[in-house]
């Protein structure tokens, strides 16, 4: 019994017990369903062991949507608690846990897999490649992300959630002030999925540098590929910093070291610095691919090529460099002195310049274009003004002297949601709608999509603009309640209404998928949007080898050239295609990482050591394995091509 006590939740509530039951029931339901419909073999062969970038992309996509709902549930609980003064829905401890898990889930387990989904789905197609450079590693990346996400998500029913904020500042996150295992979950779950992200970074950089179709010079890459490339370069340089910081945080908590403690020489500000040296580049890892998606969508639906291609590229390069030089702006008030603060104010404001260049490029792309207001385009059009507001408030926050007023208030919360929701979340939803037909063979219903769009946009404005005001008036961030006398009540009620609209909006997305699956036409051809870049040049749904013949590239809009200017995309004979084999090792390794993470979290050393050995055995097996992949014969390719409606 004593052994089991460590798994109890330190701060239970009926809602948590209800969730436990729900989780147990759903898990049993899934297992039973898989058995009843005899889908285990299918699941194993087609998904758990796949190394196909498209299937991995779809798994990222599904995970990201699930996590959006988990993070969204947290959000609506917080907004409900704040909707009126002195609410009693949540107590202080629960509020702490919820804003922490909300932040981590949304950034690490929702936004990251969402961009990885699009990188996986689109990048190989846009550069005319068969797959990524290291398909097996790609699968491992996914399963590490998945293991991390599962680990983080069980925290609230086993042992207790982390509660020190998504930034997990020390000394608050140290053992003295965070006694439960919650912060161990934070350290290890993010570590595991972070290793996966780093591997994706390496994989994607190599893919983009080395596997482009003949004729595609760097400056002929489609814009999404450019954005993905730069984001992955940032990943390669930023994530190791997080790895080290998390390692030190973990040893502080598990082995009583003194990196971030307040005695024996420990330095709590070192964590804050490391965290944000990773953390600020991280937000650009999220926003650059979003910019890339908007670029594709805006030029497609304006029927014009992207305005200022090279300035788009150079502005992203500049942003990626600057993103490493601004981290101190997250703690202007923590005593660096005026000179340091001024320098970081200026570097921060400088980022507005390349970002502004991009905004104008999008506007000029639309200028005199033949605009079609499809759902993806609506999101893009709403993004421009809303994101600009987020950027302007960002520049306000960047002024270090003024930041003493805004710091840790709802103004900041409004600011970063103002960039991240119209910036990242809208881009993901726009991309989802835009690329859905490519991978699933039908278009999502446009009418329902527009309803979703309006619910989200109006909901967003209602939910977050009032926070600017209450923030300036002094409503603090991460406070679970406020008194009647503050006068914040009405505006917070408005925020709650907005959040509720957004929640309804997210539900309509699921409904739309269901509705379109039942009702949408399957006869949409391979280019339903009259699009411009290479990913639309192959069949829908995409065959496993992507392109039967390697495409010949003329420009960043090769496909458009082939449609309008008679450029010959596919030349020569169909040849045999080499493909990688499926493998169960990545999945197994992911699961072992899960067990290892769990064991470390609860300081169960025996299983921890055993699972580490297991990980090494998997690596050794990989080393000795002889895997030369397999070949798809010309006959098979021709048959597949015919089946999909004519050879390409």
């Amino acid at each position, binding site marked *: 019994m004593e052994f089991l006590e460590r798994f109890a939740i330190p701060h239970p509530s009926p809602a948590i017990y209800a969730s436990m039951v729900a989780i147990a029931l759903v898990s049993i339901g899934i297992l039973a369903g898989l058995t009843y419909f005899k889908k285990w073999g299918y699941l194993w062969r087609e998904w758990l062991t796949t190394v196909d970038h498209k299937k991995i992309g779809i798994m990222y996509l599904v995970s990201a949507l699930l996590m959006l709902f988990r993070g969204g549930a947290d959000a609506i609980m917080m907004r409900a608690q704040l909707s009126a003064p002195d609410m009693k829905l949540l107590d202080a401890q629960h509020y702490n846990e919820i804003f922490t898990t909300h932040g981590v889930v949304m950034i690490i387990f929702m936004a990251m897999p969402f961009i990885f989904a699009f990188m996986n789905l689109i990048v190989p197609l846009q550069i005319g490649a068969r797959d990524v*450079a*290291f398909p097996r590693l790609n699968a491992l990346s996914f399963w590490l992300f998945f293991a991390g996400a599962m680990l983080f998500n069980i925290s609230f029913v086993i042992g207790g959630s982390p509660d020190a904020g998504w930034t997990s500042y020390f000394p608050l996150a140290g053992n003295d002030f965070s006694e439960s295992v919650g912060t161990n979950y934070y350290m290890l779950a993010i570590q595991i999925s972070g290793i996966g992200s*780093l591997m994706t*970074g*390496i*994989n994607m*950089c*190599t893919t983009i*540098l*080395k*596997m482009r179709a003949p004729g595609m010079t760097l400056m002929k890459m489609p814009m999404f590929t450019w954005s993905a490339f730069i984001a992955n370069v940032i990943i*390669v*340089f*930023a*994530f*190791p*910093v997080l*790895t*080290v*910081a998390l*390692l*030190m945080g973990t*040893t502080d908590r598990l*082995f*009583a*070291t*003194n*990196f971030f*403690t307040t*005695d*024996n*020489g*420990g*330095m709590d500000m*070192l964590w804050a610095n*490391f965290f944000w040296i990773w953390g600020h580049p991280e937000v650009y890892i999220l926003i650059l691919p979003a910019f890339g998606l908007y670029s594709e969508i805006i030029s497609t639906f304006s029927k014009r090529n992207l305005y200022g291609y090279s300035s788009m590229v150079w502005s992203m390069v500049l942003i990626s460099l600057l993103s490493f030089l601004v981290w101190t702006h997250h703690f202007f008030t923590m005593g660096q002195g005026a000179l340091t603060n001024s320098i970081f104010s200026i570097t921060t404001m400088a980022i507005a310049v390349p970002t502004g260049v991009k905004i104008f490029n999008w506007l000029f792309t639309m200028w005199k274009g033949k605009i079609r207001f499809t759902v993806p385009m609506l999101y893009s059009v709403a993004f421009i003004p809303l994101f600009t507001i987020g950027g302007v408030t960002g520049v306000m926050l960047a002024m270090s002297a003024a930041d003493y007023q805004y710091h840790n208030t709802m103004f900041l919360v409004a600011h970063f949601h103002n960039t991240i929701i119209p910036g990242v979340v809208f881009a993901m939803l726009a991309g989802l709608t835009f690329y859905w037909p490519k991978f699933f063979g039908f278009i999502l219903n446009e009418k329902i999509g527009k309803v979703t769009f309006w619910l989200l946009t109006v909901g967003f404005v209602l939910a977050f603009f009032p926070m600017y005001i209450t923030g300036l008036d002094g409503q603090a961030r991460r406070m679970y309640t406020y008194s009647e006398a503050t006068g914040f009540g009405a505006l917070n009620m408005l925020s709650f209404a907005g959040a509720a609209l957004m929640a309804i909006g997210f539900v309509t997305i699921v409904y739309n998928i269901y509705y379109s699956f039942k009702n949408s036409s399957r006869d949409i051809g391979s280019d339903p949007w009259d699009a411009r870049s290479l990913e639309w040049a192959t069949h829908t749904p995409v065959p496993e080898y992507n392109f039967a013949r390697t495409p010949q590239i003329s420009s960043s809009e090769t496909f458009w050239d082939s449609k309008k200017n008679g450029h010959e995309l596919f030349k020569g004979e169909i040849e045999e295609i*080499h493909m990688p084999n499926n493998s169960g090792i990545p999945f197994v390794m992911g699961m072992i990482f899960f067990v290892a993470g769990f064991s470390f979290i609860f300081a169960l050393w025996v299983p921890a050591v055993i699972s580490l050995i297991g990980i*090494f055995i998997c690596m*050794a097996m990989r*080393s*000795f394995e002889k895997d*030369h992949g397999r070949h798809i014969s010309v006959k098979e390719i021709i048959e597949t091509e015919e089946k999909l409606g004519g050879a390409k």
Partner: protein
Amino acid sequence: MHIDNSQPLEYSTQQNQLNILGFWIFLGAEIMLFATLFTAYFTLEGRTGSGPAPAEIFEITPVLIETLVLLTSSFTIGLGIHAMRLGRKNAMLTFFTITLLLGLCFLGVEIYEFMHYYHIGATYQTSAFTAALLTTLGTHGAHVTLGLFWGTFIILQVKKRGLTPETANKSFIFSLYWHFLDVVWIFIFSFIYLKGMM
């Protein structure tokens, strides 16, 4: 699989070239990892709490042995790759084995060094300085340990399968890794030990 004979064996297939570029990018990430560790070390080296200061615990002899052994091993693995390029499998295997034995020596001395620190009261928990020191050294040491296993696997594979594009590629990448660990050690030697002893 298309083999391009104008290239050295380790570069001769498309996948081989991808592997090498991918590994260089990985080394870029490793540089960031160690740069972060060094930053932590430089920030914390003066923060000794009630524990000892760097000059009080560093001993020159084991450090010199470690340095000598590791530098030599970098040289021998270079000879190993040279032999591989000439297609001399046995010479290559000999040099790889010597490299790993030197690596093992290094590790032995490093373990001795850690025990020494422990005995004189500079443990992982003593102060921010000791934690940063042992984490930086330990991360490097863990890399060496992993390298010993990895190198052994490669030797076994070359022995059994001969010099193929695949085994040559693995051996070459392993040599990059090993040289990298040597470079990191040079930084550790200069900026942790020498600086700390002055």
